[in-house]
């Protein structure tokens, strides 16, 4: 069996695609392991979804091709939670609230707060606690 890879995706479903079981097909037909971090359907019935997909490169590519047959916007950089570097003062308040250590003190000498997006599970704790409003969500 070839090596599996994991890819983080952020998907946007317009109203017309919201009721289709797209993720089911990724699992059933493309043999992908999905790990959903966060999903939201807005009052306008648009949907947002941030997830990891794990599988062989070939299966992932086929799954992506399948996704593209729908009117779904695929963001492969998967940034559901972003930090504004201009707003961040590196105070470190978020660090004690971040459950996965995605936000951490990088350099012990300068006390710079680094954001490792790959470790973020999108719990949104940082958005609630940042006094400077540096963290925000795409949806």
């Amino acid at each position, binding site marked *: 069996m070839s090596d599996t890879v994991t890819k983080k995706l952020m998907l946007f479903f317009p109203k017309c695609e919201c009721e289709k079981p797209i993720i089911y097909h990724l699992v059933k037909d493309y043999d992908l392991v999905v790990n959903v971090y966060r999903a939201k359907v807005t009052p306008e019935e648009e949907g947002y979804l941030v997830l990891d997909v794990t599988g062989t490169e070939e299966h992932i590519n086929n799954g992506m091709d399948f996704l593209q047959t729908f009117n779904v916007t695929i963001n492969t950089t998967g940034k559901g939670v972003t930090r504004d570097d201009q707003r961040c003062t590196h105070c470190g308040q978020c660090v004690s*609230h971040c459950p996965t250590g995605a936000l951490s003190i990088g350099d012990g000498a300068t006390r710079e707060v680094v954001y490792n997006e790959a470790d973020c599970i999108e719990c949104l704790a940082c958005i609630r606690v940042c006094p400077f409003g540096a963290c925000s969500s795409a949806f």
Partner: protein
Amino acid sequence: MVNPRNCYQNYNVAINDSDRTIYTYMGALEPRRENASYCSAGQLSPLLNDPHYDTIGVGTRVWLAGAHGHVYAEGTQHAGACERTADGVPMEGAGTLALTADMKQMRPEFVRGVSFRGYGVSLAVGVGVPIPILNPDVLKRTCVRDRDIMAPVVDYSSDYPQKTGRVIGHVSYEQLRGGEIEIEGCKVTVGSLSSYYKALEIANLLADEVRRGDFLLAEPNAPLPKDRAMKPLEIREKAS
């Protein structure tokens, strides 16, 4: 800009002993001591480098968010008469400074509006205070390290609002910066509110301005009070 209280010389480490989250000016404090919050730049905080106010007084020139201003008085709640270590470093909130400078000369990066969910708004400003090394004692005191500065751990669910004065214990800024402190045998994750990163940046910016001759020092024309104790507001009658 006129700031009646800046540069708190040491301060509390806030925790929450109750069973529900409380929203304070020290940030969100989770129940049962799940997290702690502190707010001093420790070894880079101006008044912790001049614990007896030997060089910092009324009239001292300061770097306030990039503008050149001065200390116009001791700050509100200034209380130099406090518990100190053998080296004279305050072990609780002590001195404060009242500062002023021209806002038009400030850099937006160092004047920042802040919002604490469930509490309210505040303003975060960057401050640098030059300390002239006049003698070996002044030099020695500016060499203070985080491990030499102790902060009191205080329960913000009952002891702080009820002004009981109870301190659960003391921790050093070295421990606080490690991201985890031990309180009565339990490990508690800790976050900061003051930015050490920005404090270091300001120290370097101010040092450069002094070296270039752009920032001139001034001798204080009056000392800060040394023996004043905290005088809290006593509420004598409940509002009806």
